């Protein structure tokens, strides 16, 4: 049975999903104590009724302040050709504006070593994004909606990346009938991006594990009933770190282009304290993690 459609205005909604999915960090609308697995699922599982409760469950399963992780992207083209890139992903929620920033510093392939990408969440609309390329030695702001392509040669678009990293993506959500995903019972939430998000998707459907509040699958629909992309998390590779559950192996499939990207996350550290300056534009040219 379809649950009536309570609309949840959502800066935080998608963010929360993405955070859990990526094993990254999350915003917390309030200053609650770090979510613990014991606390969240025990209190939520089985009693969730509204879409907000599902979103709260996801939101609480997130780092309080910051996260660091090593990520390896293995992008496969249509004929099975593999291209590997490796980056350190740093994330922090700034106390000053309660908005988050995500920084990627690439170490592989060698030709792009030192390149950096910074995404700064905005109150409304899509995040601001900046690139630093060592060969040009300039930081460039990237604007426009044309980034719907293949970010870093992977199957993530700028929008997918922002969603995965939990950056603000305005939209409205509703609960769909519960389901079973990869053998696990899940809550299903559908989000329709708001116009100001300039999303390339008509809707995005999340399948949230009822036990860990990790999003096990995200289906992104451009139009019609066939998803354009599906991001899945391997439920056998969930990791608990600092009381937060992370998916450490993910697979992003572009069904239209018949390409896919494997994402493997290692060395997850939560709430170790990252300086704000790490995320400043002026320091993008510095090849440092902290």
């Amino acid at each position: 049975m379809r649950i009536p459609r309570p609309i949840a205005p959502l800066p935080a909604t998608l963010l929360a999903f993405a955070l859990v999915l990526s094993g990254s960090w999350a915003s917390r609308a309030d200053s609650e104590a770090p979510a613990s697995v014991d606390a969240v699922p025990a209190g939520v599982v089985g009693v969730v009724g509204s879409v907000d409760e599902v979103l709260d469950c996801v939101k609480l399963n997130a780092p309080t302040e910051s996260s660091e992780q090593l990520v390896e992207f293995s992008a496969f083209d249509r004929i099975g050709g593999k291209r590997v890139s490796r980056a350190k992903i740093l994330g922090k929620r700034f106390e000053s504006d309660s908005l988050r920033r995500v920084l990627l510093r690439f170490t592989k392939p060698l030709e792009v070593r030192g390149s950096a990408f910074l995404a700064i969440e905005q109150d409304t609309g899509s995040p601001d994004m900046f690139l630093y390329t060592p060969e040009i030695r300039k930081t460039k702001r990237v604007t426009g909606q044309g980034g719907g392509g293949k970010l870093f040669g992977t199957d993530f678009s700028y929008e997918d990346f922002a969603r995965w990293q939990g950056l603000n993506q305005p939209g409205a959500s509703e609960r769909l009938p519960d389901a079973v995903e990869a053998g696990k019972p899940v809550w299903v939430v559908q989000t329709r991006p708001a116009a100001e998000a300039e999303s390339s998707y008509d809707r995005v459907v999340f399948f949230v594990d009822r036990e860990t509040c990790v999003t096990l699958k995200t289906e992104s629909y451009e139009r019609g009933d066939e998803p354009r992309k599906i991001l899945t998390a391997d439920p056998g590779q969930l990791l608990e770190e600092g009381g937060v559950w992370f998916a450490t192996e993910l697979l992003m499939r572009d069904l239209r282009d018949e390409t896919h990207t494997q994402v493997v996350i290692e060395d997850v550290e939560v709430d170790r304290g990252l300086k704000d300056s790490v995320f400043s534009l002026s320091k993008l040219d510095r090849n440092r993690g902290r």
Partner: protein
Amino acid sequence: MDQLFRFVTGRAWLMLAILTGVTGLAVDQLVDFETGRFLLEIDPSENRLLPEGDESKQFYDFVRKAFGNDETMLVAVRTDDLFTAESLSTVERLTTRLGLVDGVHHVTSIVNAIDIRGSEFGIDVEPFVREVPDDPEALEELRQRVLDNPVFAGNLVSNDARTAAIIIQFLDFSDREFINRGTDAEIQAIVDAERGGAEVFITGGPHIKVAQVQYQLADWKRAMPLILLGLGLVLAFSFRTVRGVVLPLLTIVIALVWTMGLAAWQEEPLNLVTSLVPPLMLILGLSYAVHVVSEYYDSVRENPDASSAEAAHHAVMLVAQPLILTAITTAAGFLALALSPIGAISEFGVLALIGITASTLASLFLLPTLLSLLPLPRRTSQTDTGPLARAARVLGDFNLRNRTLILWAYAGLFVAALGAASQVEVGGNSIAAFPADSNVRVHFNAVNEYLEGANPFNIVLRSDKENAFQEPENLRLLEEFQVWLEDQPEIGGTTSVADFIKLINRGFHENRPEYLAIPETRRLAAQLLFFGSSEDLLGFLDGRRQLANIRVRANVMDRTIVSDLVNRINARMQDFPEGIVGTVTGNPILKNRLAETISRGQALSMFSALAFIYAILIVFFLDWRTALRALLPNALVVVFFFGALGASGVTLNLATSIIGPMALGIAIDDTIHYFVRFTQDAKRYADERRAMGSALIAVGRPVTYTTIAICTGFFMLTTSDLTPQVQVGALGAVTLAFAWLVDVTLTPVLCSGLRVVTLWDSLTLDLGEDPANTIELFKGLSKTQCRWVALMASMRQLPAGQRLMQAGEQGRELYVIIDGTVEASVDRPEGRLVLRRQGRGDTVGVVGIFNRLRSANVDVIEDARVLRLTQKNMQRLASRYPRTAAQVFRNLGEHVAELLSDTTEKLT
């Protein structure tokens, strides 16, 4: 066989019920009764025409997988000036709505193509037209930006800024699915609704293929009734009765329904070649039905007291064996096509074989059933044999008098045809298949003109090193190669990763024009690709950056010109540095490959057809030399066909490649008819020259009528809108008309001086009732063994009064009396002493077989038919059928013993 046909004609209502049931099943497979939809589909795909193992096809499939489906549709919007609010709005509306069509992968036009622009503040990655501007300055600025973009100028907007291209890329589904989805019609409807005041042209592979199917279906609707009408007229002229027209037509239509029903049941769609099967089956099936009806009328005329069923039975019994034999020879032509390496032609061969089988079965079972059920005709068909017979007689005389002239004339024709055949070009131009004023052709030509090329293909450069195509030197190689390509007059434009990286470079350098260039360093190139990578780039560079795809827009379709271009490109690619190899691929290249395969396949098909038919002729004539004589005129027909092809300038293409083997299979039937009749008459008159003319008179009429019918049918195909169908119709009719001419002139000349025993003789050999018990030499043999012995011998007609043997002569043979009476006698001084009278079954002149002198005279008392058996015949029999020969020798021994005993008794 007798019992079978007795059942068919005796239980006609039951047969009708069975055959109606079979036809019902076939119709059920062909039509969805709920929707009224025709279930047999046409798959116009050209890709699957090539053999699966073909290297070019495999590489094309690989490239298609690596870089995406290259089968795009192109909607060209033509206005006075594209950079006006109105024109751009039209393009925007079309782009948006076309992008929503089910099955569309994505749509690219100037309004949504991504423009990477740099500024001092950063990089703006946005579509060229986010919102359609309406102030002149913004429009002018947009014009400059678009025309300044090397990727999109010429591709998405014509260089004169009047035409916009909207490129529709589809999900990777088959052409068949594309048609079934109705995507083309949906796109057409959107274009009609949104075009505003602009001229809009639609073209591209999928659109052309849909048009091909539509034309094919329309063609069927028009050509089939016309063929039936033409055949009906020939039948009316030939039989001059209603049933003589209706029943053969009904028979061939039902045979066609069976054939197509079977194809639909197998869920095999028709392809570009098998779609020719329906009209051809109507044409070819008619001659079988005509033979049955013709024989039926003869039976009724000869036995006016017989019932309908009896007349039908008699007719079908007479025609069954020759009909099956001619069906086998026709089938041999199609069997040769079934061996073609090209899937479509092979499928045509198989389906045509099924069609021939269905036509034969319908003529042998359905037609006699219907004839049995109908009352006896009040009038039998009136055949106008007079003029035809006179003409045949004149022709026969002419042949007799001018044998040498005829042989020289055909020798000359052979040489001329061979010369013309050397001019045959292999080719095919899918757009040229449509009428010059058809929308599909007009639109194609318009797009070709306005956008400088509507025939895309790819050149794929491969390196053995990973990341090769982020090396500046290789990117520059691409750039230089593209410059060379664009200098070729047949090429309208090219796009490659080099264009993309130049644009990204410029964007990352504040849009300064000097950076519209290949990056200087490998690291910069890698970083630009890393951050500037887009979905569009998937079509030009693989993940490992070892493969670079150049998309080329050619403005030519003609196979020869494309082939010449490809040769030049290949020669240019020889200059590439070691480690980089270029390959040209794409639909135009596959078409060239297909043409080469057709050429090779044609040789194989012709050789196979000749071999099959020669083998059949050897079996039939039981002599390889006679078979060769029968094959010769038909081989000439094949040479004539290729000569006609070369002289007319028609290319050897998918459609025309079926004519040669098919014509051979059809033409040989008439030759066999003539040879059989000639042999019979030669034996009857013991005069080959006379038989030459009489056989022509006898077979001239049916051969001429069936040729007229078949040529009329082929001629009706020339009413088609599709050029290949017209070519098949015209060349088929001309070739078969020539085959007729050969059969009434050259074949008789070649037959003169020939004595042949045919399989037909063996099947029709009349040894009288129960030969094993009525002919002493055949005692203990089966009916078949009796025929083997008879075939080794020769049959002779002897008039009363003729002396068969003369006493004292050297004997070399014995005679078996099949019917009639002879008398053996010896001349004594006291007068003639009659030794004995002998009749059916008796053996005469046994000593002759042992090379002894004849001991008595033998005279024919009553007209007799005798079997002449020589010592050589006996040796041949012993080597081929030793067991039969042993029994014959045993019988001979008994006969000699009896003779000895009888003579001894007489002497004592």
